[in-house]
C-alpha cells in the first residue's frame, strides 16, 4: 500500500513539476542569451534590457522555488486536513504511510527542483566565466584534502536529511494548526513560529551556551590549535565540519523524529475535517 501511495503522489504531481522545471530551463536559456548579449553587444539599450531581464530572471527563479515549496506542502494540507481527507483517511493505510509517502514525494521533487534551479542559475551566470580545467583542478584539490571520517559522513548525511526535516517541520506545524477551531492555517503559522523559537533557543544553548559544563562550539571548535597556510586551513575546516557534522546529524534526526510523531499523533487523535 505504501508503494501505491507513492505512485499516486507522483502521478498527481508530475505535470506541475514538469511545467515548472520547463519554465526554469526556458527562462535560463533566455538568460544565457542575455548574458551573451551583455558581453558582446555594443548597444546601450540592449545591454540595459538584458540586465533588467537578468534581475527579473533571478527574482522569477526565487519566486518559482517558493511557489513550488508551498505547492508541495499545500498538497499535504489539502490531502490530510481538507475535504480531500475524507478520501485519504478512509483508504486502508496507516497515518505513518500517509506521512511517509508524501514526505518521499515532496523530498524528491524539492531536491530535484532545487538542483535544477541552482544549476540553471550557475550555467546562466558563470558558463562563459569558468575555466573548466581550473575548476576541476580546484575540485580535485579540495577533494584530496577532505578526510572521509565518520564525522564528515555524518555532516553529509545531515545535509541529505535536512530538507526532509524542513518538510516535516511544515507538516507538523500544519497538523498542530488543527488544534485551532477556526483559522487553522494562521494557527499553523503560529505553531511554526513557536517551534522555530523553541528550537533556536535549544540549538543556540547547545552550540554556544554553557550546557553541562561546556558548549559544543567551545568543546570542538575553539580547542583547535591551528597553524598557518592552506593545510592548516583544511585541518581547521575538517575539525569544525566534523564536529558540526555529528551535531547536525543527531539534531536533525531527533527533531525530524519529533515532528514525525507529533504529525502522526495529530492525524490519529485530533483529525477534524471541516
Amino acid at each position, binding site marked *: *500500500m505504501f508503494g*501505491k501511495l507513492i*505512485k*499516486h503522489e507522483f*502521478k*498527481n504531481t508530475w505535470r506541475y513539476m514538469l511545467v515548472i522545471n520547463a519554465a526554469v530551463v526556458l527562462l535560463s536559456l533566455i538568460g544565457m542569451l542575455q548574458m551573451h548579449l551583455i558581453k558582446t553587444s555594443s548597444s546601450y539599450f540592449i545591454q540595459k534590457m538584458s540586465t533588467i531581464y537578468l534581475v527579473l530572471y533571478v527574482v522569477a527563479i526565487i519566486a518559482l522555488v517558493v511557489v513550488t515549496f508551498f505547492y508541495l506542502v499545500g498538497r499535504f494540507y*489539502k490531502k490530510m486536513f481538507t*475535504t*480531500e*481527507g*475524507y*478520501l485519504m*483517511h*478512509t*483508504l*486502508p*493505510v*496507516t497515518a505513518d504511510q500517509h506521512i511517509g509517502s508524501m514526505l518521499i514525494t515532496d523530498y524528491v521533487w524539492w531536491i530535484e527542483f532545487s538542483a535544477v534551479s541552482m544549476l540553471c542559475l550557475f550555467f546562466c551566470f558563470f558558463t562563459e566565466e569558468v575555466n573548466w580545467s581550473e575548476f576541476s583542478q580546484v575540485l580535485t584539490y579540495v577533494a584530496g584534502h577532505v578526510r572521509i571520517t565518520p564525522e564528515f559522513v555524518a555532516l553529509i548525511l545531515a545535509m541529505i536529511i535536512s530538507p526532509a526535516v524542513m518538510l516535516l517541520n511544515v507538516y507538523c506545524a500544519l497538523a498542530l494548526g488543527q488544534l485551532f477551531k477556526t483559522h487553522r492555517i494562521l494557527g499553523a503559522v503560529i505553531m511554526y513560529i513557536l517551534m522555530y523559537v523553541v528550537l533556536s533557543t535549544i540549538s543556540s544553548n547547545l552550540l554556544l551556551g554553557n550546557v553541562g559544563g561546556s558548549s559544543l562550539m567551545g568543546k570542538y571548535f575553539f580547542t583547535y590549535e591551528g597553524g598557518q597556510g592552506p593545510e592548516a586551513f583544511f585541518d581547521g575546516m575538517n575539525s569544525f565540519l566534523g564536529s558540526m557534522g555529528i551535531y547536525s546529524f543527531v539534531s536533525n534526526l531527533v527533531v525530524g523524529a519529533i515532528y514525525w510523531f507529533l504529525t502522526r499523533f495529530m492525524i*490519529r*487523535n*485530533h*483529525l*477534524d*475535517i471541516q
Partner: protein
Amino acid sequence: MEPILKCNNLGKNYGSIHAVDGISFEVAPGRIVGLLGPNGSGKTTLIKMINGLLKPTRGEVLINGNRPGVESKKIISYLPDSNYLDPDMTFQSSVSLFKDFYEDFEEERAYEMLSRLGIDPKARFKTLSKGNKEKMQLILTMSRQAKLYVLDEPIAGVDPATRDYILQTIIGNYNPQASIIISTHLISDVEKILDDVLFLKNGQIVLYNSADAVRDANGKSVDEVFREVFACSAN
C-alpha cells in the same frame, strides 16, 4: 449473527457540547438503516467516528469486531456529505486509485454506471456540475463490494431527478449481504428502502426499530413519526 457495526456507550464532545452522547446500538448484516435526525443531531459526527475520521471521547465503535483502522477501512465504503475528490482528478484516475487500494472495487461496474450518465471519464472533476460530481462519487462508492456502506446525506441538495438516480444506484448496486447506513433528514424519499430506522436527537438515540414496526406501532409513516418526534422537541 455477528453485527457488522457495534457502538458501545459511544460519545463525542466538542468542549461542553455532547455531539454524540453515549449511544449504544448494533447493525446486523444485510440491513438498510436510516440514520435520521435534524441538522445538528449528531449524524455526521457518528458517521465520522465509524470511519475513523474522529476519535471518540468515550466508548467504542467496532466494525466487524475491529476498531476503526486499516482492517475496518477495507470493508467500509463511505460517501461523505461533501466533494472529496481532488478537482484536478478525473473519473479515470480516481478509478485507478480505488482499484489500487480496495480489493473489492469493481472497475467494470464503475465504467458501466458512468456510461449510463454519458460523462467523459477523462473530464476533470472541476469541470463537472455539482450534481455530476456527486453522482461520480456515488458510483465510486457503490462500485465496491463492501460489507458496510456508510452514506452521509446522499440525497441532500440535489434535484428530484438526481435524487431518484442516487436511490436507484444505491439499491441496484449494493452487495445484498452488506449493510447500508443512510443518513438523511429527507425521510419521505428514502423511507421505502429502509429496513430499520434510528432517530438521533441531540446526540442521543430516541428510537431504533424496524421501519415496519415503527409504522405498525404508530399507524403512520416513518416520515410522519419523525415529524411528530422532532416537532415535540421544538416546543
